[in-house]
């Protein structure tokens, strides 16, 4: 087990390194871009000006030298570079935006699991009834309607009939806890609903399979209460795939907040990345790649290890 975890950790580090290096070179394929974004307000541009900006941004060296310097900064000083736009260390931008995204994702994840498992269970207990059809329709609806369409409809309905408007400006948790939680409400429900579809489908199909097993028949024959059969015996086994997926889903939610954050003007990681991409802010894009790849690989590792721990039959 230890050897396996160690092996996977080495692989994870290699993956993150590979992703970061690939992104590093990819953003430099068109080296003029960052410079021109910086100069877009200036009218006439002389070659000297371009050279000067390149020097200031650290883009005048050979790409390999730049890569070496970048990694040296990260490994020796934890310095991921300076943002081209804000001129502040990139890490500050990331650290400022992480709490927003994490809070949003935790709410959304909880809603997604709760909704998915509840609806999936109800659906599986009454297969091929109107309740089941309705639940499945809702789930495929959640899977199909893009988040930005759903968000637009929600904002439209709420603003027209309740007079609710998406909050402008962000309230920090410590400054005003109630305002803070309130502004997460709608976006979290939205993201939770969208991702609950997968949970619902998996719960339903897994539970349908488990209910047909012999030990459930035995439990019924023993005269156990139906609720106890479902919760203690059936769900316990049926939820294994759901929880396996939940870890991956958490990582996916963390990387998938761009749209919701943009719509609800939340200063999270997604907004930060989008701004970085739009401004051709290479250090931001590179650091974002490292962050996201790290989150993904670590979540995958945790999922695999906990799966092994939950079910000793799993072999690698």
């Amino acid at each position, binding site marked *: 087990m230890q050897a396996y975890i160690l092996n996977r950790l080495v692989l994870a580090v290699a993956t993150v390194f590979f992703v970061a290096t690939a992104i590093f070179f990819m953003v430099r394929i068109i080296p003029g871009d960052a410079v021109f974004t910086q100069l877009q307000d200036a009218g006439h541009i002389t070659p000297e000006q371009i050279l000067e900006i390149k020097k200031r941004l650290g883009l005048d060296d050979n790409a390999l030298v730049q890569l070496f310097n970048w990694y040296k900064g990260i490994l020796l000083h934890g310095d991921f570079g300076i943002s081209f736009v804000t001129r502040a260390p990139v890490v500050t931008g990331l650290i400022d935006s992480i709490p927003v995204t994490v809070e949003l994702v935790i709410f959304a994840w909880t809603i997604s699991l709760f909704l998915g498992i509840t609806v999936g269970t109800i659906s599986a207990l009454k297969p091929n009834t109107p309740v089941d059809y309705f639940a499945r329709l809702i789930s495929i609806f959640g899977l199909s*309607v*893009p988040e*930005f369409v759903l968000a637009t409809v929600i904002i439209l309905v709420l603003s027209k009939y309740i007079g609710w408007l998406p909050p402008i400006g962000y309230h920090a948790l410590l400054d005003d806890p109630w305002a803070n939680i309130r502004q997460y409400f709608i976006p979290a429900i939205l993201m939770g609903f969208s991702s609950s579809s997968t949970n619902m489908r998996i719960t339903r199909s897994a539970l349908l399979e488990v209910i047909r097993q012999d030990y459930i028949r035995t439990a019924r024959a023993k005269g156990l209460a139906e609720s106890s059969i479902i919760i203690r015996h059936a769900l316990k086994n049926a939820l294994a795939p759901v929880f396996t997926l939940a870890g991956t889903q958490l990582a996916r939610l963390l990387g*998938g907040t761009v749209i919701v954050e943009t719509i609800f003007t939340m200063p999270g990681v997604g907004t930060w990345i989008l701004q970085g*991409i739009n401004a051709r802010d290479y250090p931001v894009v590179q650091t974002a790649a490292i962050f996201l*790849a790290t989150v993904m690989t670590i979540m995958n590792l945790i999922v695999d290890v906990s799966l092994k721990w939950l079910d000793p039959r799993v072999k690698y």
Partner: protein
Amino acid sequence: MATSNTASEVLANARPTKKLDLWKGFKTFARRQPIGMICAFIIIGVIITAIFAPLIQPYGETDVVARRLEAPSAKHLIGTDDIGRDVFSRTVNGARVSLMAGVIAVAIGTASGAVIGISSGYAGGRTDLYIQRFVDAMLSMPSLILAMVLVTIMGTGLINSLLAIGIILIPTQSRIFRSSTLSIKQEMYVEAAKAIGASTPRILVRHIFPQVLPLIIIVASAAVAVAIIVEASLSFLGLGVQPPTPSWGNMLSGPGRAYLETAPWLVMGPGIAISITVLAYNMLGDALRDVLDPRLRGSRR
């Protein structure tokens, strides 16, 4: 077994030469999956709309034809936008971008995914190991972010966003093809082909590929919905199709959101169009999978 019959039927149907079987498979599908059939018709409708958009749309998609923000009327079915363009015409024309995302991006993704997956699985050993680590790396980036980065590098616009969407589809597609190839590789007839001295390309094309073909249909049909959503998301974020060219994604951003309360019809057309299209693709994908491969039932993603 009834199910295996269906699978081989559909396999045969994939070859356009057997017309009779195609009709039979079509009837079987319509009987077993009526909802899937309705969805197929919706999709055909969307495709026809996209192809014949210039004939269907009453006005040019970028022409200013009326006063700005006019409410829906008989003349302008879903009103006009912030500079007086006909929203219905723009929505109809936007189907073209979606269709291109669904066809071109998915073709790029599935074809490359199939080539990479099949060769990785068949080669095995070190080659397989390296290719799979590469796929791991691609999978470790959230797909929308990867698409955003790719589009930024290649430049915004329709062609580049289609290419980016195709690329982000590759890792998941190739995984599916690889695992299928791994099991087919063990089959007796592959060994037999090897024993009589068939070349590797011949084995891949004549023996492995036909077995993977039904999978391609399922995988591609599921990917279409993803491609359409990612394209719309990119356009929504301003990284895909650039205005004034209409796409369902960019119609929902900018003016659409600015005038949300006073002129909700700006977002209604494209919003409903994309929702129904993706819904139809997803439900058709489910129906196809139930018919083609019952083992995969309920295991989306």
